[in-house]
């Protein structure tokens, strides 16, 4: 009790007996919570592969696994699921690329350049961070409608490009890059644009990847805005909006509904498993900055 050669980690400084029990308890809790998070996703997949007669049976392994749910949602001409998939992909890819380009450029100026009005402009960006998105919903809908962009890709994409999170995120990162690297490039005769593209951007690959991944996810998963802009145009809908349409049409056709949900989920789940380091990192940074 009074010994001063304390172990470095307080978790491990406990006795052996209690350590074993608490370790077991820890794993028990971890597995219980793990089941809560994982089982619904598995249940979605299980239902999607069940034939009609099995939907209402609670078996966790389909007796006669089938692809008929997928086939019928892809075959239904009123539900262009493959088109929705393409819409989602196209919107997410274009949105992500534009965010990366636009935000990186702006972030570089705010991080490294001196210009008139910089502080006022940056302050304005800061202020909008605390403004709830609901304030902008109706006016932006009117703007998009006036531009004739209802039911179009640009109607979904353009308003999101105004966001300031990416600018802040990249500005923080750019400021951490040693100035000497840029100065060396300038001495070698590079202009600002060249310095930006050949020195700054390659050094920021990690930050750009992080922002890219979360931006892609945000776009792929967003619901309310695409619902407003694309809700009345079936062929232009994204997968999440399409899934709501599917729910309206197949109300109690759970197998087809879960097949649709799985189609929406698989790409992001794959992306998440492959790139979770970046996603988790970016969220952790949000918290530490805040």
């Amino acid at each position: 009790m009074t010994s001063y050669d304390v172990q470095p980690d307080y978790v491990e400084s406990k006795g052996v007996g209690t350590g074993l029990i608490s370790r077991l308890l820890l794993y028990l809790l971890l597995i219980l919570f793990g089941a809560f998070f994982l089982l619904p996703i598995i249940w979605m997949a299980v239902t999607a592969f069940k034939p009609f007669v099995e939907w209402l049976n609670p078996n966790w392994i389909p007796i006669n696994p089938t692809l008929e749910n997928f086939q019928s949602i892809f075959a239904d001409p009123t539900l262009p699921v493959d088109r929705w998939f393409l819409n989602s992909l196209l919107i997410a890819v274009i949105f992500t690329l534009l965010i990366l380009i636009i935000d990186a450029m702006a972030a570089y100026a705010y991080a490294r350049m001196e210009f008139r009005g910089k502080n006022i402009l940056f302050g304005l960006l800061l202020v909008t961070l605390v403004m709830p998105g609901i304030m902008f919903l109706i006016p932006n809908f009117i703007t998009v409608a006036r531009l004739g962009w209802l039911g179009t890709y640009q109607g979904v994409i353009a308003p999101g490009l105004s966001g300031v999170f990416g600018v802040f995120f990249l500005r923080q990162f750019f400021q951490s890059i040693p100035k000497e690297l840029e100065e060396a490039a300038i001495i070698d005769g590079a202009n600002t644009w060249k310095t930006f593209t050949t020195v700054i951007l390659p050094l920021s690959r990690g930050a750009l990847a992080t922002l890219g991944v979360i931006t892609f996810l945000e776009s792929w998963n967003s619901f309310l805005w695409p619902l407003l802009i694309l809700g009345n145009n079936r062929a232009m809908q994204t997968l999440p909006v399409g899934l709501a349409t599917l729910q309206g049409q197949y109300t109690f056709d759970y197998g087809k509904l879960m097949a649709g949900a799985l189609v929406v989920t698989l790409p992001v789940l794959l992306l998440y498993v492959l790139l979770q380091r970046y996603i988790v990192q970016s969220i952790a940074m949000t918290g530490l900055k805040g």
Partner: protein
Amino acid sequence: MTEIAKSQPEDSRIPGAVQRWQRFNMTPYLFILPHLIFFSAFLAWPFAYGLYISLFEFDFLRPEYRPFVGLENYLNLFNRGSIQFDDFWRAMGNTGEFLLWSVPPLVILALLLAVLLNGRFRGRTIFRTIYFAPYALSVTVAAVLWWWIFQSQGGLINHYLEQLGWPTPNWLSSMPEAWIAITIATIWWTIGFNTVIFLAALQEIPSSLYEAAAIDGAGPSQQFWYVTIPMLRPVLVFVITITLIASANLFGQPFLMTGGGPLQQTETVIYRIYIEGILRNQMGSASAMSIFMAAILITLTALNFKLFGQNTQR
């Protein structure tokens, strides 16, 4: 002649102006321009335009009839006789109720999960991956999936409840079961976000503090209350704030799970604004509701930081 006028001597006459001219550089503006265009069009403009149209009776489909009504759209929110009053305050009450249901578990449980994941044990990364996975899904997937699980006929929950011999409620069409279902779906979908933020903050706490506490004879629970919690305070305020705001913005879950029912009792403010502005085309009145709601959220955020975050600086 003009050649001469432009050349050296003029430079020496007004050096200040020339220096300023030489210092003026278009480059920074060109770099911020693309973002500034979108920022102006879709954040700055709608801020002003939203305030403006909230002073009109603004039906999007009737451009010829848009009378100026002053503050009427706002006053209607406080006038018992108006068409908006009952629906709006029911939605406010519902949103408040959801805050009570969802914020405590989303904060406390997330902290608990983060503490669990912060220990040293095998499989940590796997558990973290699993806990966070639902956050990568769309709200539509989360909502439709839990809508299926909570179905009173054929849903998984009622199946197991039945096997246990317990009552099997109509989860999505009775109160307060509908809130419980929406809350569980929301926790499942979003708690990973808070957990990751807490986890990162826990890892920032220097282990020397725990060592010092251990030397002073503090056990694990004392260490938690006297080291972890005070050190987490800024992050705790941050997480409570973003959770309050996220919960106050609830829309997709009731939209897809309950349709706002039973009897509009899960119809939230955002849901109401959607109905008023998009389905009923009453955009002036919907804007007034949005601004009122935004004012409340900003006040809530400010209060939260003032009350609980004395020593937090951004």
